[in-house]
C-alpha cells in the first residue's frame, strides 16, 4: 500500500509506516493535550498553562531521533512534544498541571511544564531562560567521560539565544566536541519581543559558525525535515564530531502562556497565516498522500487520543493534593529519596 521505501522522504529516512503513525499519534496527543489544558485553565482548574500549539512538529520531529533509556533530554517549558517522546504520559503531565502530590516532575512545586524525571533522563528544568544550556554541555562531558554512548538533546526558544548562558554553553560544547544537539525552536518572539529586537540576523543558525559548529535551518512544521536534521546531528555527535545547532523555524499559534494576551503585540492575521502552516495538518496531509493513514483510521486515532486525554485529566484531577507538611522537605538530601 505505501510507496516503495526509498522513494519517499520517510523511506529515505528509514522510517516505517508504523513509526510514522506513532509520530503522528504523538503530534495529536500533544495538540489535544494542549487544547484540553487550556480548557482546564478557562474552567478555573489550572491556574497556569503553557501552550505548545504550532511547535509540535519540531518538537516531535527532533525528539524522535533520540533514544529512550540512553540519551538525555534537556527540554524547556514549551516542549510537551519532546517530553511525550521521552516517555512522560498525559496523566503525568496533568498531575503537574493540577499541581498534585504525585506530579513526577516536582510534586506540584513547580509551575506546570517544568519537566524533569530522573527515570526517563529528562533533566529538571527551571523558569530562568537558558540556564539549561551549560547543563546540557556538562552532562555531555560527563557522559563521554564515563564512556557512554549518550547524546544530549537540548531545546530552547529564540529568546534564549540572547542570554549569556547560551553563548557560554554552546562555546564550551564546541571546544570539547561534545555530543550535544542544540535545538532552537524559533517562533520569532520572546513573549512579545519580535526577532528583530532580539538579534540583527535572520537566522539563529548563523551563530553556529562563530563557535565552530554546523548550523542548520529547517522548517519546524515539517516533522520529517526536523527528524532528518536531528538524526544527522545525532549521528555526528555519536561519531565524536561535536555539537550541532539546529534552528527550527516555527510558530506559536497561541499566547505565550495562559497569562498572556498576544493581541497586544501581533495581529490576528499574522497568527492566521501561521496557522496555515500547521505541523499537524502538514504531517496529516503527508500521511494521507503517502497512503499511510486513511480518513477512517484518522478519525479512530483522533477519538482514541481524545479519550486518552480525557481519562488522564479525570484521573489526575482526582489525585491527592500536595501535603503542606512536605514544604520543608528536599532542600537537602533526604535519606531514601533521590541521590
Amino acid at each position: 500500500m505505501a510507496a516503495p521505501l526509498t522513494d519517499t522522504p520517510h523511506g529515505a529516512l528509514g522510517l516505517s509506516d508504523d513509526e510514522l503513525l506513532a509520530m503522528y499519534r504523538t503530534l495529536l496527543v500533544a495538540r489535544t493535550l494542549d487544547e484540553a489544558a487550556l480548557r482546564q485553565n478557562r474552567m478555573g482548574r489550572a491556574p497556569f498553562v503553557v501552550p505548545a500549539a504550532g511547535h509540535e512538529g519540531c518538537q516531535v520531529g527532533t525528539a524522535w531521533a533520540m533514544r529512550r533509556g540512553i540519551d538525555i533530554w534537556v527540554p524547556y517549558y514549551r516542549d510537551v512534544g519532546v517530553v511525550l517522546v521521552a516517555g512522560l504520559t498525559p496523566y503525568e503531565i496533568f498531575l503537574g498541571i493540577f499541581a498534585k502530590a504525585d506530579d513526577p516532575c516536582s510534586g506540584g512545586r513547580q509551575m506546570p511544564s517544568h519537566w524533569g524525571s530522573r527515570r526517563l533522563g529528562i533533566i529538571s528544568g527551571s523558569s530562568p531562560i537558558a540556564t539549561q544550556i551549560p547543563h546540557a554541555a556538562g552532562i555531555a562531558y560527563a557522559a563521554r567521560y564515563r564512556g557512554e554512548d549518550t547524546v544530549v538533546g537540548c531545546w530552547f526558544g529564540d529568546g534564549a539565544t540572547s542570554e549569556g548562558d547560551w553563548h557560554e554553553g554552546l562555546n564550551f560544547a564546541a571546544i570539547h566536541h561534545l555530543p550535544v544537539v542544540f535545538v532552537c525552536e524559533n517562533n520569532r518572539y520572546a513573549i512579545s519581543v519580535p526577532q528583530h529586537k532580539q538579534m540583527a540576523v535572520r537566522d539563529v543558525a548563523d551563530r553556529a559558525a562563530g563557535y565552530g559548529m554546523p548550523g542548520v535551518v529547517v522548517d519546524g512544521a515539517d516533522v520529517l525535515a526536523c527528524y532528518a536534521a536531528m538524526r544527522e546531528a545525532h549521528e555526528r555527535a555519536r561519531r565524536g564530531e561535536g555539537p550541532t545547532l539546529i534552528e527550527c523555524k516555527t510558530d506559536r499559534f497561541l499566547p505565550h502562556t495562559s497569562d498572556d494576551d498576544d493581541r497586544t503585540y501581533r495581529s490576528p492575521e499574522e497568527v492566521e497565516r501561521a496557522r496555515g502552516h500547521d505541523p499537524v495538518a502538514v504531517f496529516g496531509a503527508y500521511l494521507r498522500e503517502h497512503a499511510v493513514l486513511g480518513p477512517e483510521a484518522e478519525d479512530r486515532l483522533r477519538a482514541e487520543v481524545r479519550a486518552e486525554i480525557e481519562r488522564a485529566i479525570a484521573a489526575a484531577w482526582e489525585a491527592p493534593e500536595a501535603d503542606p507538611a512536605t514544604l520543608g522537605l528536599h532542600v537537602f538530601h533526604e535519606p531514601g529519596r533521590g541521590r
Partner: protein
Amino acid sequence: MTEKNLLTAIRDALHDEMVADERIVVLGEDVGARGGVFRLSEGWMEEFGERRVIDMPLAESAIVGVAIGMALHGLLPVAEIQFADFIHPAHDQIVSEAARIRYRSNGDFGCPLVIRAPCGGGVHGALYHSQSIEATYAHVPGIKVVMPATPADAAGLLRSALRDPDPVLFLEHKRAYRAVRGEVPDTAFTTPIGVAEVKRPGTDLTVVTYGYELHRCLEAAERLAADEGIHAEVVDVRTLAPLDVRTILDSVTRTSRALIVHEDHRSYGAGAEIAAVIAQEAFWDLDAPLVRIGGPDVPAMPFAAPLEHAFLEPEPDHIYRAMLALATA
C-alpha cells in the same frame, strides 16, 4: 488625592516623570508593544517612542549593563527586571559595576540608575516567580534598596529614586500591585529614601516590617487592639538600605518589645540585620526576647496552593498570635 492601587501609583509617577524629563528611558523585556507583563507601561511605546521605551533582548545582564552605560552618559535609565527572580543573571553588573562605579572612581563617576523588579509571592508564582531579593542587595554597599508597601510611598519613593544620583533597586510586591489600594496625592511629591515610617502608632510592642507583610501586620494589629486592647506600633521600614535605624530604635525604646516580620525566608534575611541592630542598640530597653517571623528556609514558594499557603501562613493567624505572645511575654 486619588485612590489608586500600587501598580497604578507607580505607573502614574513614572509616566509623569518621563513626560517631565527626557533623560528618563525605560528598558526591559516586553516593556514596549506588550506594555510590560503587568501592563505598567501600556501605551508608552506609542507615547514616548521606541527610543525611550526599549524592548530588550532576553538578557538581564545586558538590561542592567546597558542601563549602566546610559547612566554614565547622561541618561536616567529605569531598567525593568520582569520578575525579581530573574535578576540573578544581572548580579555581577549590579554588584561589581552599578554599586561600585562611584566608589572605585573616587567619586568621579556616578551611576543614576533605577532597577525596578516585581518580587514576592502569594500569586501562584512558584519557585521562580515569588522570590524576595531584598536581603541580598541590602548587603551590597553602593546601591540603595527600597520597598514601598503603599501606593503613596511607591509614588513618592519612585520619584526620589529617579532623582537619586546613585543606583536604586526598587522592589514592588507583585501581590500588592492590585490588592493594595490607597490615597495618593496628585502632586509630584517625593518620599525620602532611607526613612522608615510608623504606619500605626502603639505602645505595647513594636512590629518592624515592610512590603506586603506590612498589610498583614496592620490587619493583625487592628484586631489585636479590638480583641485584646493591645496596641502594636507598626514600623514600615520602606528602605532596606540604608536602613533607618533611628526610627526603629525610637519605637522599640518606647515599647520594649520587638517583632520583626518579613516574607522572605528567615535565615540571613533582612530581619537579621534589624534584630541585630535592636539587640545592640536597644538591648537595655527590651523586656522580652526579639521575635523574628520569616518564611521557612526553602528556596521559594512552591506552586501548589497548599504548599504556597503553608509558606505564607505556617499556622493559622501566625502574625496575630506572635504579637499576642510577645505582648504578654
